[in-house]
C-alpha cells in the first residue's frame, strides 16, 4: 500500500476524531465521561509501553538505538530554545513563549500511535526503542522551558524598580524535575515499558488480547474525546491569534525537516527516521501542560494547550503523517 493521505485517514479511529469535531461544532451534548478518558489514555500508554518494552527485550539496546536516543534528547533540548527565540519576536508575554516552547520540544503519544499505524501499513517497521525515545523526550523540554522562564523572571525583577509583592515564588528546579518525572501519564509509560522489557515476548503475549486486540476500539473512543476537545478549543482560537496559529502549523514541518536532516546524517534506519521526525514534530498537550501550569504560572494555558491540541495535533494527523513520509522518501530515494 502506498502512503498517501487516505491510508491514514480512512481508519475508523481517525474518523472518530473527525466525528468528535463535527459533533461538538453542531453543539451536540455527546460527551465521554472524564473518568473514561483517563482510562483510555492510561490504556494507550500501557499498550505502547508493553509493546515497546517487549520488542526492546527481544532486540536489546544496540549502538544504533543509543545514537537515536541521544539525538532525541538533544532535539528535545534544542527545539524549546529555537522555538523560544522565534516566539519572542512577536509575543510580549515571554512566559507564554517559554511555555509554548516546552510543548513543542516535548512529544504526543497519540501522534506517535497514529504514525506507527501508518508506517506499519506502508510496510516499514521502526525499532522498539522508539518507545523509549518517546519517554526521554518529555522532561528535557520542560527543564529548558523552566530555565528560560526563570531567566525572564530574574530579568523582570531587575528592571521593575518596585518588586511586585504578588510575584509567584518560582518553584525550585528539583521540585519541577520531580513533577515532570512523576507525572502520572509519564510514569505509566515508563512503568509499562519496564514491565514489557522484564516479561518480554511472553508478557506481551499474555497481555495481547487487551493491549492489541481491543486497541483500535479504545483508540477510537480516545480520539472521539480528542475531537470533542479540539472543537471546544476552537473558540479560544481568536485568543491564540494568527501568529501563534501559524507557528503551530509551520513549526512541526520545520522540526520534522531538521529531524530528517539529523536522521540522514547519522544514518538512521528508515522506520526509525520516520518516527524520529514524528516525535520531533509533535507537541505535548497532556503531560507538559500539567507540569508547566505549575512551573510557569504566568503563562496562559489557553495558549499553549490550545496550540498543541487544536492546531498542531490535527495538522500532524491529517497532513503531517503522510507529508513527513513523502519528505523521507525524497531523501531516502525510496
Amino acid at each position, binding site marked *: 500500500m502506498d502512503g498517501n493521505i487516505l491510508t491514514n485517514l480512512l481508519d475508523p479511529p481517525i474518523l472518530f476524531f473527525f466525528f468528535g469535531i463535527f459533533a461538538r461544532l453542531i453543539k451536540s451534548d455527546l460527551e*465521554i*465521561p*472524564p*473518568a*473514561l*478518558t*483517563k482510562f*483510555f*489514555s492510561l490504556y494507550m500508554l500501557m499498550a505502547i509501553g508493553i509493546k515497546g518494552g517487549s520488542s526492546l527485550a527481544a532486540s536489546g539496546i544496540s549502538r544504533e538505538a543509543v545514537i537515536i536516543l541521544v539525538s532525541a534528547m538533544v532535539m528535545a533540548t534544542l527545539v524549546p530554545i529555537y522555538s523560544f527565540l522565534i516566539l519572542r519576536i512577536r509575543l510580549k508575554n515571554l512566559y507564554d513563549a517559554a511555555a509554548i516552547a516546552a510543548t513543542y520540544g516535548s512529544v504526543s503519544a497519540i501522534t506517535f500511535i497514529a504514525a506507527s499505524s501508518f508506517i506499519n501499513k506502508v510496510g516499514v517497521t521502526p525499532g522498539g526503542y522508539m518507545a523509549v525515545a518517546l519517554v526521554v523526550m518529555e522532561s528535557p523540554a520542560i527543564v529548558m522551558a523552566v530555565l528560560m522562564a526563570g531567566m525572564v523572571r530574574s530579568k523582570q525583577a531587575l528592571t521593575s524598580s518596585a518588586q511586585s509583592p*504578588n510575584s*509567584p515564588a518560582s518553584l525550585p528546579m528539583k521540585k519541577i524535575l520531580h513533577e515532570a518525572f512523576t507525572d502520572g501519564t509519564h510514569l505509566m509509560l515508563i512503568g509499562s515499558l519496564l514491565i514489557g522489557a522484564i516479561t518480554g515476548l511472553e508478557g506481551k503475549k499474555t497481555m495481547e488480547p487487551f493491549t492489541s486486540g481491543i486497541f483500535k476500539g479504545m483508540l477510537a473512543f480516545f480520539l472521539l*474525546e*480528542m475531537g470533542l*476537545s479540539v472543537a*471546544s478549543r476552537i473558540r*479560544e482560537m481568536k485568543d491564540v491569534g494568527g501568529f501563534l496559529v501559524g507557528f503551530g502549523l509551520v513549526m512541526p514541518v520545520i522540526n520534522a525537516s531538521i529531524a530528517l536532516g539529523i536522521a540522514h546524517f547519522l544514518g538512521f534506519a528508515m522506520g526509525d527516521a520516520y518516527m524520529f521526525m514524528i516525535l520531533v514534530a509533535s507537541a505535548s*498537550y*497532556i503531560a507538559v*501542560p*500539567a507540569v508547566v*501550569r*505549575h512551573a510557569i*504560572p*504566568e503563562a496562559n*494555558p*489557553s495558549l499553549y*494547550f490550545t496550540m498543541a*491540541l487544536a492546531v498542531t495535533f490535527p495538522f500532524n494527523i491529517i497532513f503531517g503523517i503522510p507529508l513527513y513520509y513523502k519528505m523521507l522518501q525524497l531523501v531516502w530515494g525510496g
Partner: protein
Amino acid sequence: MKSDGKKMKKVEIVIEAVMLKEVVTIVDEAGAGGYTILPAVTGRGHRGHRSGFGLTNVFQNTMVFTLVNEETALKISQKIKHLIQNYAGVVIISDADVVWPDYQKDQ
C-alpha cells in the same frame, strides 16, 4: 439558635485543580482542624470557561472548605488571595454554626 453549634467561619475556596495540594498545605499550616474537598467542579470567572475534561486537569477546578475560627479564616484567605493572583480561584467566607461530636468540643 439554641443548638449546641459553635459559631465558626466557613471558608470556601474554588481553585484550579493543579493547585489543590498547595491549598491543602495552606489550610493545614494555618492550623485548621480539618477540611472537605469537592474534587471536580467546573465554572467560569474572569479567566474564562474552566470545564474540567479528561485530557488534562489544567482547566479543572476543585473546591475546598474548612471550618475555622475568625482569625484562622483571615490567615487562610490572605494566603489564598496571594495564590490566586496567578491561578484561577476565589475565596468565600461565611458564618456557620458547627456541631461537633463531644470529644471534639472537649479539646
